């Protein structure tokens, strides 16, 4: 930029200089009449309608001093009511040598009051000021009439923090882009470094106007919950690179995925979707959705390794006996193997306890004549519960049974035959 301008080539400057010259010498060239531009003589306050008895108002000796008990009903005498501070103002504050007060009053407030805002706010001073005091109140309401209502932290912020120099009357239009006022905040934003990441505008996309941190920050593309809430940004956004930060857990937590031994996720073939088992509250307390094999009863509290031996999680069988074969083989009450019990444990047992076995004994033993029988009374061969004896009981002695079955074809007096025809123990079967 050129340090100086060539004056003759600038028509505006020429016009300005000409006007200045005219203004400076005009007064001499057009010397005014003695009374000047305000031809009216007499006191500065119009006295035409005043009583002719001067001493009603004036002290003797001069025209300047008024009597201490002087009163003047401005509204009654002039039709113009004086309100607020005007009511107690000295007459000469308005009625003075400048000229007829009506000419200035017609201009509104600016006719008498200096426009400290340099014309930038228009002529409606009463938008912000009242007639009692010059101190401004009610700016929250006035701001609500602009494109920038005061919300959040802005409502509790001193005016001067945005309108720099307002105490000196400076009230020029401001741009309301956040960054136009918050450049210092932007520069201070080191975690994350907003400038380095190119976040230099549109603060309102991530922040609400109540503050920069905490709830006022919008991380909704990846909600910051649990441990993420207190995590340093740089832990996820490495090297202050925010663009393209992955949202999959394992992309940030691969080291944990690879390093964990309890259980060993790799060896176990765990998926890389950590969220299947873990929450953001912490790695401990992982909850695996064991829906393929619901963990009920004792299984719910069992250590994983009890089923998933050697941290082998893939291919874990779902049949009970595959884990509980030892119990199946060793139990003596009754001996399952010798008794020919099936290996489908769940037929009799639940996951709460072995002792709560509930065998579906089709032959009634909970009611009727066989109620409260000891097992051995029928299963007289301890090693084989498939052997059942009916005929050893005096109620089923052969002579009696023969008589009862005289009309039954192929009748034989043997326990298997009894069970065959009377599986539920009823006589009429």
């Amino acid at each position: 930029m050129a340090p100086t301008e060539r004056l003759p080539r600038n028509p505006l400057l020429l016009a300005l200089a000409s006007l200045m010259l005219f203004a400076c010498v005009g007064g001499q060239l057009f010397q005014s009449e003695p009374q000047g531009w305000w031809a009216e003589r007499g006191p500065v306050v119009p006295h035409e309608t005043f009583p002719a008895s001067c001493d009603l108002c004036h002290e003797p000796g001069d025209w300047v001093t008024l009597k201490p008990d002087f009163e003047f009903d401005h509204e009654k005498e002039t039709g113009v009511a004086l309100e607020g501070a005007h009511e107690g103002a000295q007459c000469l504050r308005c009625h003075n040598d400048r000229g007829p007060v009506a000419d200035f009053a017609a201009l509104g407030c600016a006719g008498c009051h200096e426009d400290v805002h340099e014309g930038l706010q228009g002529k409606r001073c009463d938008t912000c000021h009242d007639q009692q005091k010059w101190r401004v109140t009610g700016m929250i309401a006035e701001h609500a009439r602009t494109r920038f209502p005061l919300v959040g932290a802005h409502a509790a912020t001193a005016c001067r923090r945005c309108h720099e120099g307002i105490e000196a009357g400076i009230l020029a239009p401001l741009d309301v882009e956040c960054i136009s006022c918050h450049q210092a905040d932007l520069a201070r934003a080191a975690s994350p470094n907003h400038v380095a990441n190119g976040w230099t505008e549109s603060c309102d996309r991530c922040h609400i106007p109540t503050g920069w941190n905490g709830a006022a920050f919008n991380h909704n593309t990846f909600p910051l919950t649990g441990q993420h809430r207190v995590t340093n940004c740089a832990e996820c956004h490495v090297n202050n690179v925010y663009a393209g930060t992955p949202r999959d857990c394992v992309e940030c937590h691969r080291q944990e995925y690879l390093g964990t031994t309890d259980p060993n996720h790799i060896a176990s073939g765990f998926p890389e979707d950590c969220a299947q088992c873990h929450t953001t509250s912490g790695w401990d307390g992982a909850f695996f959705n064991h829906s393929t094999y619901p963990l009920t009863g004792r299984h719910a509290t069992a250590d994983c390794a009890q089923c998933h031996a050697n941290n082998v999680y893939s291919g874990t069988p779902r049949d009970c006996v595959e884990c509980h074969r030892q119990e199946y083989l060793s139990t003596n009450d009754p001996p399952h193997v010798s008794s020919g019990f099936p290996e489908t444990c769940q037929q009799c047992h639940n996951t709460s306890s072995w002792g709560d076995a509930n065998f579906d004994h089709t032959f009634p033993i909970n009611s009727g004549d066989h109620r409260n029988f000891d097992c051995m009374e029928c299963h007289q061969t301890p090693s084989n519960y498939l052997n059942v004896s009916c005929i050893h009981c005096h109620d089923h002695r052969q002579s009696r049974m023969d008589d009862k079955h005289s009309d039954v074809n192929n009748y034989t007096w043997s326990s298997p035959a009894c069970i065959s025809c009377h599986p539920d123990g009823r006589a009429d079967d």
Partner: protein
Amino acid sequence: MALGLASTTGWAASAAAGVDAELDASASVQVDFRVISAPVVSGGSTLVRIDRGASAGLAPGDRVTFRPLGGSPVQGVVQTVEERESVVDVAQATDQLMPGVPGEVAVPASRLPGGEDPQPTDQGDYPPIEWTSDEVEWTEGTPLLAEARVLEREERPPVWRGRVYMTSDLIHDGVGAGRDDLFSRLGMDARGTNLFGFGGEFRIDGEVNMRDTQVADGQGEQDTLARLDRFSYALGGVRGEPRRIEVGRFLPREFPELGLLDGAEVSWRTGAGHSVGASIGYLPSNDRERSTGDTLQISSWGTLMVDEDQRFQLGAALQKTWHMGEADRQLFLARLRWSPNGPWSAFATAWVDFYDSNDPLKQDSVELTQAIASLSRRIGKYSGVSLSSSMNRYPSLLRNGIQDLGSSIITDGSNRRVSLSGWTRLSDVDRINVRADQWADQSSSGAGGEFGWGHQLDGPRIQRINTSVFYREGRFGAVKGLRTGIGGPLSGGSWRADLDAGLFGQARFDGSQADLFQGALSLGWDGIIGADWLLSLTTAYRFGDEQDAVSLGFLLQRSF
């Protein structure tokens, strides 16, 4: 009014008797009536109003003699009597009975306050008047029948007028880590007239500002700054002296749009109200420090009164600035003021910047940087409508602005507003107002509206109730809310309580906390304490989502 009676009785008695010789007080009381002075207050051809009434003993039928200066006496008869004034029927129509014309009326002594023998005791605390006005030297051009010569400024005693004040505001924001902000101002604004015997006016206006901001992270700030806003001496610009010069730090009187100036301005005004002026000097910095010496300006301006009543004024100004030695702003200002006695009024100002090829952002262009316009019309005594509009762009300047704006904002930034408002009185105690407006800037636009109702009461403590509802689409969201307030007299002043509550929704923020309910409850009292002291107290509590702040403030001012 009793004072006027007492001071006139003595010599008025002689006039009633038609005798020019002086009569002493003892002679006057021997007469059965008194003649008192009754000057004309308002004139007419056949009916005039005089400055005496029943309190001075007048009654319908009393004869009044007017003695217009340079004319023959005019007779009249009192027609109606009020407490302090009377209406007199003048037998012969005349145009000589202008306000101030002396009049005399004979009043029976028995009607006078105090009975038959009123004594001039009402002279009271005041000594006899001894007027000591000097003879006025007549010069060519002075009307022969001029009214009393007024003292010119340079003949008057020096007078100081102004105010000293202190104001302080404390805001405690309890959100988050918390913040306390204290801002105090101690200042004086005074004008001294004819301090040096030249009839000029000396102006001084300055403040000391104290800031103290405390925040939890230790990044608070404290500073104290003394600032001089005005320090100038002006001569002329008053009647008798149409030329005016002002030097020092001042705001140009006719064109404040040119900005605060450290320099000098000369101006000249014609009898018809036209004026021209020019100034040279430095523009103080556009910040709270108002430091000077960086930006030099020269400017010139002129105003033109379009009508004889001097109610329609057009004005224009040119300003050229250099910042740190480099050419900076070329500004053209145009202004219109129209405030006739009728119901209409209009006002408009435009700032136009000229950019040359050296400007990095707006080279070789002419831009309307800012404009303000309003048009108002009163409808009857209690109604009116107003249309106002404004726009602004951001000038490309070397001189620092309030904000450190980016080049894109300077190039493309703008803001336009237009609003229409109206008000009317529904009854003696009810008033409504309505407002609708629209705005648009470089990125978005919005609209808003407000409807308000005000009611006056006769209660001893509550004399007004105001309520309004509003809606606003702002730059970053929309707010809808309610304001209500009450107020009235209290302890020699007036108190007020206001509640402002709104629901704000942030536009581009998609979090669950995008909707905020916020409110403010404020209390205040303003009053005159003592003869010249003004005290204003305010307090407010801001509450709602993510908001918890208390503010306290006061203004103490003494006028002199």
